[in-house]
């Protein structure tokens, strides 16, 4: 008993460690609590059943929807948009961010502009995108691109600015030229941070995707949610939320696992 009590107290030890089993147990406990609350709340009837479906109803709807080809196509359409827009935005943002940090003239040319655009809320731009490019894929791409590129560029530049100068000085005394400083010090130093930035911005990408898809589109998860609204099908919306959340959870977890593989030195330092 007293032994148990001592263990409980270690939970509240500031930044104290916790065993893996215990971690999983806590996660399952909170998940169970959440489902229980959901179940109870849907049974209370404060909100009518059709607007606040029970867990059982959502699960049965999920099984039905996931068996339909249409819904799978919707998910793939959304994921495809994310993939293309995020890839292009990252491929541009990383080199531009690094150059902004490396050369003041690039920073002077680009940063004020980016700061300006960054503070224009992307949804405000959707009407003009539609006027320019119609309601096709291009306007969706622009929303995603504007939502991620400008944030990402600045994050990368800030990270690059924070690489200690001595790392470069030392490489120069060993004979590195300016391009070699970028290749051999700046990029490898930043890779784990860039990877983390990408992981986080990928999450924002999904936010902008749904905004884009709510406006005008024939396929996509956002479109499915909108259709569900027309038919008051709250259970279908819930399934969409679950799918979105699960995609996020799985990609994020996979990215974290890959991080440990890609940057073994970075985990070691964190230990």
């Amino acid at each position: 008993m007293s032994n148990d009590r001592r263990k409980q107290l270690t939970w509240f030890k500031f930044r104290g460690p916790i065993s893996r089993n215990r971690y999983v147990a806590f996660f399952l406990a909170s998940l169970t609590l959440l489902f229980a609350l959901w179940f109870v709340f849907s049974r209370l009837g404060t909100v009518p059943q059709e607007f606040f479906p029970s867990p059982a109803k959502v699960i049965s709807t999920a099984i039905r929807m996931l068996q339909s080809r249409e819904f799978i196509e919707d998910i793939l359409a959304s994921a495809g948009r994310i993939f293309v827009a995020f890839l292009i935005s990252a491929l541009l943002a990383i080199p531009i961010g690094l150059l902004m940090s490396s050369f003041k003239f690039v920073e002077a040319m680009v940063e004020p502009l980016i700061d300006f655009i960054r503070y224009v809320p992307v949804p405000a731009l959707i009407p003009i995108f539609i006027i320019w490019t119609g309601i096709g894929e291009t306007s969706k791409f622009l929303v995603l691109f504007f939502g991620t590129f400008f944030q990402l560029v600045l994050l990368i530049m800030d990270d690059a600015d924070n690489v200690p100068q001595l790392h470069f000085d030392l490489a120069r005394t060993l004979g590195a030229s300016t391009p070699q400083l970028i290749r051999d010090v700046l990029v490898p130093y930043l890779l784990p941070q860039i990877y983390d930035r990408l992981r986080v911005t990928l999450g924002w990408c999904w936010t902008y995707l749904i905004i884009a898809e709510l406006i005008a589109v024939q396929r996509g998860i956002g479109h499915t949610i909108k259709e569900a609204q027309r038919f008051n099908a709250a259970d279908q919306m819930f399934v969409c939320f679950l799918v979105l959340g699960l995609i996020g959870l799985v990609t994020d977890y996979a990215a974290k696992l890959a991080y440990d593989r890609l940057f073994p030195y970075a985990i070691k330092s964190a230990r």
Partner: protein
Amino acid sequence: MTLSVSVEHKSFGSSGNVTNVLSDVAFVVPPRSILGIFGPSGCGKSTLLRIIAGLDVNYTGFVELKGKPVTHPTRNIGLTVQTHISYDWLTVAGNIAFGLRYSPRLNGSGFLNRLTGRVDGKAAAKEVERLAEIVGLSQSDLQKYPEEMSGGMKQRMAFARALLPHPEVLLLDEPFSSLDFESRQSLQEVVLRARDELGISFICVSHDPEEVLYLSDEVLVLSGRPARIINRSIPTLPAKDKRYTQEFQGAKKELSQLLNRLKKPKK
């Protein structure tokens, strides 16, 4: 003369808020010699080393290596810094070999190798092992990442990395400050060996009187604001076992007392 240095004036800051750091600091470093620079912390020793390394060119005066002005960093003047820098994404072996990719001798041939900075693996491994042995790193240390190493081991690594390009002059900024007494002594022997066997000259900045006296062929004492050379001495002590002679202990005591006197007026 291998290296001649003359810093007439060095200051930081812009108009209205100028700090004069160095004034009329001039000396020469002959081949195969060790110059010790001694002085209270914050007196401008590190700034002086940055100037000599070609990392800081905003000063009046000149630095010449074998008669040629030093205007930018070069492989001929190496540097180790007080806060040991490690390239954490590379193993200890990779850190030591870092400078190899810029070596005309060992640089891989072919466009792709030059683009990616790949070096001939076998030759690199041989070179790294040789240096690791000199500074006292084991085979298993070489496979570790810097983060797994103690501060002292990182200093050994940094020292090996700086030795690798065979510089004419190697600048040591508080080189062995985080080592225990025995490791410090063994690395001091490495410095002496590098001078005698490889013909490298050293400038060793330290606030440890024993280290400066033991290693140096000539000692400069820097002090004041802006810092000037206030004392030059040539320790004329027998090289072998000089650490344990009475003369050495006397000189060490004198230097310590000097340091204490220098510290007082600043407060």
